[in-house]
């Protein structure tokens, strides 16, 4: 690799989508990178292991893309205790569930980032988690003999994130902070692809280096409104009624769900096609302030 010029890390959304292959472990950040999620459903990628929650996870299950879920929470926020396609698939035994909780998940991700085979964690001691997830081993700590859980390293093949901004070289800024999970998912993954609202100049990044939340993501995809129907901090709020439409269709299943997937995931070939279908007026109505 030699180059006279510094190389851009901006890639086309189709190129990004084609990085996803059957059987991969894919981690989904918060807010959800919905444009990439829709591409996965459109491409009918199969047998994924998914680290994710809520609507994004549910859409992937509804689209038939998921074999296994690394799950600490499958609620859809206020009013949706458990997302419908997940519940149906779980109760039918159609997906494997690697049962965990937030501290166990982040411990496994941290172990991967730190190049360690495991990290210990206390949360979960005494619960059913080690019983229903045999990868979690009860250990005695080597110092005081306290009971702890050894969490094996969790290594996503690809982490998909949505953030506010990036320069052309993968220096990413989350507006209002990277939330609680994105950096863990990024550090643990072999590759991180970030869809962003906006590409900004390298000088802008250098003006406040500490604001950079991910320095040098592997690839960046320009996706304005790319988190819809989720919020994107600094840009728009959640489209709650659209999310409700999805949960309603997913709850019904069958034809109604299939029509939803066709209309919003399969037919639009690009993210711009999807936005066209949503309509600019609706999008403009989602301003934060």
């Amino acid at each position, binding site marked *: 690799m030699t180059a006279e010029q510094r190389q851009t890390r901006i890639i086309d959304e189709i190129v990004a989508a084609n990085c996803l292959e059957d059987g991969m472990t894919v981690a989904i950040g918060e807010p959800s990178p919905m444009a990439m999620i829709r591409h996965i459903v459109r491409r009918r990628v199969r047998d994924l292991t998914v680290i994710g929650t809520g609507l994004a996870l549910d859409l992937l299950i509804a689209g038939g893309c998921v074999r296994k879920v690394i799950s600490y929470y*499958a609620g859809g926020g206020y009013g949706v205790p458990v997302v419908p396609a997940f519940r149906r698939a779980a109760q039918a*035994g159609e997906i494997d569930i690697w049962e965990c*909780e937030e501290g166990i998940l982040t411990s496994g991700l941290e172990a991967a980032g730190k190049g360690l085979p495991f990290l210990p964690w*206390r949360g979960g001691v005494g*619960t059913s988690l080690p019983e229903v997830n045999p990868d979690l081993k009860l250990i005695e700590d080597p110092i005081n003999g*306290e009971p702890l859980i050894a969490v094996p390293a969790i290594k996503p093949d690809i982490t998909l994130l949505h953030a506010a901004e990036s320069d052309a070289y993968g220096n990413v800024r989350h507006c209002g902070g990277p939330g609680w999970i994105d950096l863990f998912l990024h550090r643990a993954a072999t590759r991180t692809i970030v869809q962003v609202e906006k590409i900004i100049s390298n000088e802008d990044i250098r003006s406040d280096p500490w604001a950079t939340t991910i320095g040098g993501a592997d690839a960046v995809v320009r996706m304005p409104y790319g988190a819809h129907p989720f919020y994107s901090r600094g840009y728009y*709020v959640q489209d709650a009624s659209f999310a409700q439409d999805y949960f309603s269709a997913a709850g019904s299943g069958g034809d109604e769900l299939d029509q939803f997937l066709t209309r919003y995931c399969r037919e639009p070939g690009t993210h711009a096609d999807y936005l066209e279908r949503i309509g600019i007026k609706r999008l403009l109505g989602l301003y*934060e302030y």
Partner: protein
Amino acid sequence: MTVECSAQELMAVFLARDFVDGEHLQVGVGLPVPEAAVRLAHMMHGPNMELVFLGARMNVAHLDYLPLPAFGWDRRVVRWSESFSDRGHRFDQVKDWGRRVFFIGGIQVDLYGNTNLIGIGDDHRRLKFRGPGSVGTPTLTTHVGRYYIVLNSHTARTFVPRCDFISTVGWGGGGADAREKLGLPGGGPKYCVTPLCVMDFSEDEKRMRLRSLHPGVSLEEVKSNTGFDLLIPDDVPVTELPTEAELTVLRTRVDREGLLRGD
């Protein structure tokens, strides 16, 4: 009730009175009663309280009003925070959680205050009823100074002798040393609050015990809706009603939309 209020309002006020100024009160998504309770306490008597919502540390006693619920991730709300306590490291400072207070729900709760968010059934690979999963409750309840079990309904389907799966350990198999034996540093569940009553845990056995009945609720109603033998003290008081002042703050500065009144 002489002061007209809903069961959820009563629950929120009961909880609010139990919080001490300076405590850190953390509420997860989708728990409107605890959310209202911590905000009420903060405004009534807790200027040094910190409200923690998905890692955002907020001190908002000076604000007239904030929308309820969806406190946790909506930027229109968390813009009022002073820091993200974890800066992406949610659980990197659990050693300080002794003064933190937390709240959990559950699809099952047993007589020692263990709870279940995983699911109902015999076989984890094919549950009869799949729950949302444990979220961060195992870690939070392991470390926080105390927590409250808050449920929106009180039925024998929820209050079971033994959870099918345990996602948070309350008092394990019972006994005041149950948590210590497991090496869990936190103080465990203090109260279980439902639309019918308030329950606590007996000193020795740590079995669930009736503490007060909400106005108009009979002992029989509680017993028949609880799937295990609740300890019943000789004297069971009625849960104290909200004051006018509390209801005023609750309804004008916390829950203007009437979420807790079912409006």
